[in-house]
Structures are given as structure tokens and as C-alpha cells.
């Protein structure tokens, strides 16, 4: 019988090695898999590359990974927000590298990894400092940047409910990066409020099909 539930977050993440690239869902607090990120703090792998819209707040989630010196590089759209003092300190001291990516391009690069697209052209960020070093091509009269997929080792995804096949549904704006990051890494681990029986999710309303999810941890 297929059963993707694992009882402890630290078991699901036990083989995260130093230098791993990890996708973390969330736009602000909604969608942030706090329990899984706490498990990363507990397990202590270092030199991580964290891909997430923001760079943590207060001493929670990604901020704690940064405080513990586990993060080599952040790939984000919006690392600065109210309470992001840990990231700001690490950044000011040069302790963490930042790759700033426009949010739409960030989503699309992650989707490309999930969907087997090897590269794409986007008009976003043309003529800006974020185009530095990128190949430019004019297509149909519009100058575009060539962007590549953002591959990762793990995707940590926060959702609302899951069944034992790993099918997921979300709650409101918690969804954000979940359906994009799930399946974009070699292994996807979801953190959910509760598990439901197989058949407990409407096949028409499943947002992330279980094929993209390897393991599920409940709160």
C-alpha cells in the first residue's frame, strides 16, 4: 500500500547533505513550512542554498537557518521585509550570498525544472541590473532574457491537507509556491495540517497531484 506519510520531519530530511539546494515555499508566513525548516536547523547541514520568495523573519524559519550559519546562498525575490533583521545582518557582514530574481522569473525557473523545460525567454528585467550577464535575444520585436531552470535537491512545501498518495490541497494564499516547487526538486516533502483518507480530497479540487510529492509530515 502506498503511504507517503512519515511521522517525524527529521526522518524525512535526514539525508540532506552539506551544500544541498533547497526550495522552500511561502510568501511571507503563509505557505512557509516552519516545521520542516526547524528540522533542518535541528539536523544542522551547512553550506545550503535556499530558494524562497523571502529570507525569513524574526528568529523563525529561514531566519534561524541564517542565524546558525547554515546558509551559503539565498536565491530570493524579496529578501527584505519587516523583521528580516537576521538576513540583513548576515548580508551586511558578507556572510551570505544573494541571488536576486524577479518573482515571476523565479516561479518560471522553478516550474521549468519541474516541467522539463531547458530554458525560456522572458521580457522581464530586460535593461535592468538584474539582466547582467544574461543572454539577450529579440523575438517578435521584443528583447528578452534567456533564463534557465532552477534545479534543486529538496523542495519543502507547506499545504493544508494530504492523503496517503501525497495529493495536496492548500488554504487561500498559502498556495503561492506550493504547486510550483512540488516536483521541482529531486525529492519533495510536504508539511500539512492534517491527513485525510484516500478519497477524502475531491479529484476536481486537488491542486498538487501526489506524483510530485515523495513524503508528507503532519503537524
Amino acid at each position: 500500500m502506498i503511504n507517503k506519510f512519515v511521522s517525524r520531519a527529521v526522518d524525512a530530511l535526514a539525508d540532506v547533505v552539506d551544500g544541498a539546494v533547497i526550495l522552500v515555499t511561502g510568501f511571507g508566513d503563509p505557505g512557509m513550512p516552519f516545521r520542516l525548516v526547524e528540522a533542518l536547523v535541528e539536523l544542522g547541514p551547512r553550506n545550503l542554498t535556499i530558494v524562497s520568495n523571502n529570507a525569513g523573519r524574526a528568529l523563525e524559519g529561514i531566519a534561524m537557518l541564517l542565524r546558525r550559519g547554515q546558509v551559503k546562498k539565498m536565491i530570493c525575490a524579496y529578501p527584505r521585509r519587516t523583521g528580516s533583521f537576521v538576513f540583513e545582518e548576515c548580508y551586511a557582514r558578507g556572510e551570505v550570498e544573494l541571488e536576486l530574481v524577479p518573482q515571476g522569473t523565479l516561479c518560471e525557473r522553478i516550474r521549468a525544472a519541474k516541467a522539463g523545460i531547458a530554458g525560456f525567454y522572458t521580457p522581464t528585467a530586460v535593461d535592468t541590473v538584474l539582466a547582467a550577464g544574461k543572454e539577450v535575444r529579440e523575438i517578435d520585436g521584443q528583447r528578452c532574457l534567456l533564463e534557465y531552470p532552477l534545479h534543486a535537491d529538496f523542495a519543502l512545501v507547506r499545504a493544508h491537507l494530504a492523503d496517503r498518495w501525497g495529493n495536496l490541497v492548500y488554504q487561500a494564499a498559502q498556495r503561492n509556491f506550493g504547486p510550483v516547487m512540488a516536483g521541482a526538486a529531486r525529492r519533495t516533502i510536504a508539511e500539512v495540517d492534517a491527513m485525510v483518507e484516500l478519497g477524502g480530497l475531491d479529484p476536481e479540487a486537488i491542486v498538487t497531484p501526489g506524483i510530485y510529492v515523495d513524503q508528507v509530515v503532519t503537524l
Partner: protein
Amino acid sequence: MSDAQQRRRQQIAWRAAQDFFEGAYVNLGVGIPTEAVRHVPAGREVIFHSENGILGVAGIAPDNAINRNLVNASQQFITVQIGAAYFDCCESFAMLRGRHVDIAFLGGYEISEAGDLASWDRRKVGVPPAVGGAMDIAIGARAIWVGMEHCTADGRPRLVREVSLPLTGARVVSRVYTDLAVIDVGPQGGTVREIHPGITMRHLREVTQWRLAEATDLRSMPQRDACAAGAQA
């Protein structure tokens, strides 16, 4: 923020909101624009897009109705309209990049006469840059309107010949709403459509680095406080 500044900012948001047409899909930027959701004329249906994955933002949630999973792009707790839909960020930016959003009403630091927008990085030492969705929105929405105070706190123009700060998008802004005027961006410079009743074109030109022409139907900019007073009378 002083009461006077608060009023100026609400006036800007209010003035732009009067121009959101029935059925428009509108994305609101952080700051002044976020306030516009409160100022849509009664009876007009406008559908607000939030780039974290919502169509149908209604407004800021009252303290007794907070859903911790329901925030706007400014991370404020919100409520949604009947008819709202949730989706992921990739779909949300498909809506923007794919030119499905009619109007993005954004904040900004500087705008050039050509419509170049600088809105994301003030290059303050030690402060990490943060772009969010600004660049995708700038090139994606069908019309980019910017709402900003006409001058900086120390009195320097924000409508400048060339932007000095890092660009968000080149030649993207089509209209600017400030506390002093409503100005359309065009190939010959700005066209002033409305001007604050208390100032002259000469004054406006002094605080604007663009070439400015008067619209043939130039009018005095309606004031929110006056309208509110009128509505109460």
C-alpha cells in the same frame, strides 16, 4: 507620517481609484497604491489582483476576521470578494507577464520623461535589494500607473529627466498620479490632465523635470475631502 502627508497619500490613492473602470483587473503595489482598494466608487466592480495568488481582494481584514493564510502582496491580512479565486504564483505571474492585468497601480521613486520607472532599489548602504514582482509587473500589465508624492521629503522632483536609481522597467509608465497633478506620459513629454486647485502650471513645472504640456481639457483635480464632504452634506 504627518496627518498632512497621510491625507496627501490618501488623495493620490483615491484619485487613481476613480479611474479604475468597471470590470478592470487591477494589481496594486506596496505603499500608496494598496490604499486604492478602499476608494473604488460605490457600485463599480473592480477585481483586484494580488501577485501571491489572489483575484478578488476586498480590503484589509478587520481584527476579528483574520485568516492567517490570507495576505496581500504587502503581507497585510485581507478579506476577499465573493467571486474570488486562489491560484499559485506561477499562474499569477502568467497573468501579469501575459498582459491579462489591465492596470498595475504602483509606487515609485523616480520616473523619467520616457516612462522609465525606478521603484525597487534606493541603493542604501547595507540594505539588501529586494525586487519582488516589480519587474514582471512593470513589463506585464497593460497599463502602468504610478502613484507617488510629487516630490521627495526634501523637495526634489521625482519626475526626472533620467532616472538615477536602478531601473524597474524601461518606457513602461503611462500615467502618474501625484498630490499635485495627473499626468499622462507621451512621446513629447508629459500631458497634464489635472492640476491641484491650489497651484499653477508654473509651479508644477518648477517641481517637475519633464517637458509638460497642458491637456486641451485640463481641469482642476477633484479632491477626495471635498467629495467626502459633499457626500455627507
